[in-house]
């Protein structure tokens, strides 16, 4: 079991580093969008502090969406997905490994970049900490939920819009709890509640998503 997950992680990470442009562009998007808001709206501290959590979270969500499109496309086109499906290993495990690889390449860099960008919005230390924790709990959920949509739309041409339409509604709770918790923490409130909820959503996604995305990729392969 461990061998399958580690083999897929190793391969996908290596491919990610080989095609670093694909990995870097969602990150660039995240950085550019968050940097443009202060320029377009107002550099005033109160305005930025109010907007910060929401803007950072929305940009992170959209950056994740951007990177999801390519999650299974290549695997489907070059036939490596069907090789994995006919192989002896349980498909849900393979799908979980794919989602984990996606998070390591697209979600984790966002979490690491976020505190830097949060400075632009004058977020206090508690707010920055909450932003990192909520992103750390929320982005894996987004990777998992997104993998279902990506598996369903992998065979469809120009599936970007369809993918967004399919999974954005599912991502809304993560966005709401993530950005509200960050905002509340910035105002000095205790945010354990929303953090527990984000954790619960992640646990739910880890248990339900692999089976769902396996069924979805089978449909795409059929």
């Amino acid at each position: 079991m461990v061998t399958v997950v580690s083999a897929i992680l190793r391969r996908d990470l290596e491919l990610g580093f080989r095609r670093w442009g694909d990995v870097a562009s969602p990150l660039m998007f995240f950085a550019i969008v968050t940097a443009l808001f202060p320029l377009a709206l107002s550099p005033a501290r109160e305005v930025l502090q109010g907007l910060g959590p929401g803007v950072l979270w929305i940009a992170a969500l959209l950056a994740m969406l951007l990177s999801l499109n390519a999650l299974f496309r290549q695997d489907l086109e070059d036939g490596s997905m069907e090789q994995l499906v006919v192989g002896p290993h349980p498909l849900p495990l393979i799908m979980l490994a794919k989602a984990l690889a996606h998070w390591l390449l697209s979600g984790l860099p966002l979490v690491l970049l976020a505190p830097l960008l949060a400075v632009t919005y004058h977020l206090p230390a508690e707010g920055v900490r909450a932003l990192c924790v909520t992103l750390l709990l929320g982005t894996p959920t987004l990777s998992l939920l997104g993998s279902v949509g990506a598996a369903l739309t992998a065979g469809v041409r120009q599936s970007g819009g369809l993918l967004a339409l399919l999974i954005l509604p599912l991502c809304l709770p993560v966005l709401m709890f993530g950005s509200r918790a960050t905002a509340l923490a910035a105002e000095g409130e205790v945010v354990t509640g929303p953090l527990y909820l984000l954790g619960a959503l992640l646990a739910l996604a880890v248990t339900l998503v692999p089976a769902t995305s396996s069924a979805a990729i089978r449909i795409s392969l059929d």
Partner: protein
Amino acid sequence: MINLSNDAMLVADELTLWRGELCLFDGLSVAVEPGQALMVRGPNGAGKTTLLRVLCGLTRPEAGQVHWCGEPVETSGEQFGRALAYCGHQTGLKADLSLAGNLAFAARLAGLHGEPWRDIMAQLGLASRADLLVRHLSAGQQRRGALVRALMVPAQLWVFDEPFTNLDAAGRDWLEARLDAHLDRGGMAIIAAHHELRPRPGLRTLELAEAR
């Protein structure tokens, strides 16, 4: 309908599959036993590839079922997966990894140790290409790479879709010899090909008619 014997290993029963308005096959039954090879022939678009995908469990037929050792292929996942070497239309190789990197990944998944691809690769004349990225290989070399991946695992059932395309005469002879050895050991093979296979005991041909 073919007379099904009980010791047959791969049995497909009364398969029916439609693609839109086209009926690719209706009530098709196939059985392959150890030592037997089944060659699937037919004009372009007759459903050779689709039939092979159904037999591997990749495509679900509208009716009928495929059994491996008496169990439906959907539920005998691990057992069937270990017994099957599938070589489809696409090579299943990652263009941005080296050939050796691709094969190492496949070997890791199959639970093989060392570098089981070395010998086969040398026999197919790929030894000097092992460290090249797959995108820099020619179509024939990529096809050979996919064959190496399929042949390095100790699978009992080969399902190969057009394995002879892009292969030169020497490559074809080599593959035919491998097939003979595989059948002698009690292996099974299902091969879709335009190229005529050498006649051999245990070789049967399934002629698919044009889709209606």
